[in-house]
């Protein structure tokens, strides 16, 4: 077998081994850890790209672990949906890894830095595993690997409230994970298989069974908790606001997206569209809660004074969009939902990275203290503005593309009343981002920050050059700017991601 055939397993093995080697690397030389992390995430990103090429060429790739045939052995499946999510997650992981160095140095005690990167690698392993696996019990295990590493990463936050946030998330995350495990148990009980594709074949005959209905209920509630669908969102704001900046960015951009991916898999691959529509009216329930999430996320974001918390609540609203697209169960809406996984990762990633820079440079997280930052860090704030415009859904940005498809999908499903929901939420989003943008550009700074390059512990010119007085080092600035520019690039040249997303949507709806 050539190396290419083993890519689906390498995408998990590489970060997993890196996680083990990271503390050893730290023993040799602490500063090597960052280089190692960047290298590994880059390799993972390359693997994801080559998987995309393979899938575009040959369609679905099935990898048999240890050579055992699918329904019995564990199978890894790369199809147009999972490869899309793999690409998004690995790209964000790489961008954030490049960014991480300075921010991690500033927020995490030096002795713990190698462990931080080690857990970061485990987190990537978990996300990749959840996305690529074709075995439902394997999916549960990877989900728990992801969750455990998120708890640890959040607990590394500088404020002691991070501990409480992490603990609360641990309790709720474990409830969610165990619910998924119970769901897996009921499905195994009636079908005797754990293979996702095989379940999709066997289940339609058993749709009347109460065990199947129970399994479905446990899956839906458990996953809604994992991806923070509105009434089950309470763990999210604290977790995002007290985590280290790097962690907020990467978790907000990837973890809930992978949760949404799992929900799509359960709704459409394990169960079928027929089941979602006719056996239980789950789509109506999800549409209701998703609309509630979209509106309430924006309303709650409006009342926040802390920028991280505002972005966290806005994430809750954005999760609503993804679930809404899934619940409308037609090709257009589903395309919108899948593409929003990508778009939201880009824009929320760039916004959280900007906040990380502001925290690194000035230490403020209060929106009222953003006064006049536009003059001090023009590039960073331009990135923020681009991200904000995308969140609002201004034309020519990625936010517009996904909202457009969602609106078309809503009309297509005959639910025109969802269009005003999307519009109202966009207006609210505009209002709460405008508050920040106004502070940034139209107020004079009332405090003068005396942070000079020397204070942050590095010499200008050697490694990070200072673009202007308060502008961040290059390693932080470049990933942030790249993400926000991509918000525009894929807003204008939307064809490529839309094509992959609509392929994935057709795949989920059973059209091939």
């Amino acid at each position, binding site marked *: 077998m050539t190396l290419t055939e083993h890519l689906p397993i390498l995408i998990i093995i590489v970060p997993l081994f890196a996680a083990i080697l990271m503390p050893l690397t730290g023993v040799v030389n602490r500063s090597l850890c960052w280089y190692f992390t960047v290298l590994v995430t880059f390799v993972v990103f390359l693997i994801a790209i080559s998987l995309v090429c393979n899938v575009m060429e040959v369609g679905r790739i099935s990898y048999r672990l240890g050579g055992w045939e699918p329904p019995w052995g564990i199978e890894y499946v790369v199809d147009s949906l999972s490869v899309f999510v793999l690409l998004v997650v690995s790209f964000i992981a790489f961008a954030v890894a490049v960014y991480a160095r300075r921010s991690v140095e500033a927020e995490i005690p030096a002795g713990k830095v190698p462990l931080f990167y080690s857990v970061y690698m485990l987190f990537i392993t978990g996300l990749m595993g959840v996305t690529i696996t074709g075995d439902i019990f394997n999916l549960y295990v990877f989900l*728990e690997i992801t969750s455990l590493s998120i708890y640890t990463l959040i607990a590394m936050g500088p404020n002691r409230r991070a501990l409480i946030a*992490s*603990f609360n998330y641990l309790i709720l995350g474990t409830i969610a994970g165990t619910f998924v*495990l119970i769901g897996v*148990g009921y499905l*195994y*009980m009636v079908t005797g298989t754990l293979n996702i594709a095989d379940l999709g074949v066997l289940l339609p005959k058993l749709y009347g069974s109460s065990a199947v209905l129970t399994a479905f209920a446990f899956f839906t509630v458990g996953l809604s908790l994992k991806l923070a669908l509105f009434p089950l969102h309470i763990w999210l704001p604290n977790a995002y606001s007290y985590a280290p900046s790097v962690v907020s960015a990467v978790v907000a951009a990837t973890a809930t997206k992978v949760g949404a991916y799992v929900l799509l898999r359960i709704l459409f691959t394990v169960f079928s569209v027929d089941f979602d529509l006719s056996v239980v009216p789950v789509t109506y329930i999800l549409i209701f809660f998703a609309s509630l999430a979209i509106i309430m996320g924006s309303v709650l974001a409006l009342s926040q004074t802390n920028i991280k918390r505002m972005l966290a609540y806005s994430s809750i609203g954005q999760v609503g969009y993804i679930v809404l697209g899934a619940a409308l169960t037609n090709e257009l809406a589903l395309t919108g939902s899948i593409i929003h996984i990508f778009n939201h990762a880009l824009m929320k990633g760039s916004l959280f990275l900007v906040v990380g820079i502001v925290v690194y440079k000035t230490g403020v997280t209060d929106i009222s203290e953003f006064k006049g930052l536009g003059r001090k860090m023009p590039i960073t704030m331009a990135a923020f503005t681009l991200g904000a415009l995308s969140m609002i859904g201004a034309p020519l940005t990625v936010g517009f593309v996904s909202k457009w498809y969602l609106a078309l999908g809503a009309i297509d499903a005959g639910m025109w009343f969802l269009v005003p929901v999307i519009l109202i939420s966009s207006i609210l989003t505009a209002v709460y981002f405008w508050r920040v943008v106004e502070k940034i550009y139209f107020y004079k700074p009332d405090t003068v920050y005396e942070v000079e390059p020397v204070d942050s512990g590095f010499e200008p010119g050697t490694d990070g050059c200072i673009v202007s007085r308060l502008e961040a080092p290059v390693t932080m600035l470049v990933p942030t700017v790249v993400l926000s520019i991509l918000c525009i690039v894929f807003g204008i040249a939307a064809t490529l991601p839309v094509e992959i997303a609509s392929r994935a949507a057709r795949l989920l709806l059973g059209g091939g």
Partner: protein
Amino acid sequence: MIETILGKYNYWIYIALMMIGFYAMVAKENLIKKIIGMSVFQTAVFLFYVSMAKVTGGTAPIEMHHAKLYDNPLPHTLMLTGIVVSVSTTAVALALIIRIYKAYGSIEEDRILDVEKESSGFE
């Protein structure tokens, strides 16, 4: 009726244990008690898996020569993994509780909230 209650008693026990654990996780104020609840909650699910593996009259799947009927070994192996996940979660939770105790001087939720209120009052 009696058949469903007595014949499937292990499933009833699983549900009872699960609800007890779930209640403790949500309602108890002491963080350690929450973790105890979490363990009960997860262990209940192991019972559920092991129960479904039982084949009436079946024996342990290691005795290859004498018996004709074996219990399904797969749920047992799945639960080995489940136990690993549960132990790791408990370990992370206990480590967090130690750090919470160091930071707040208490593991009671209401006391922690009080400490939090006092400190934010001074800011």
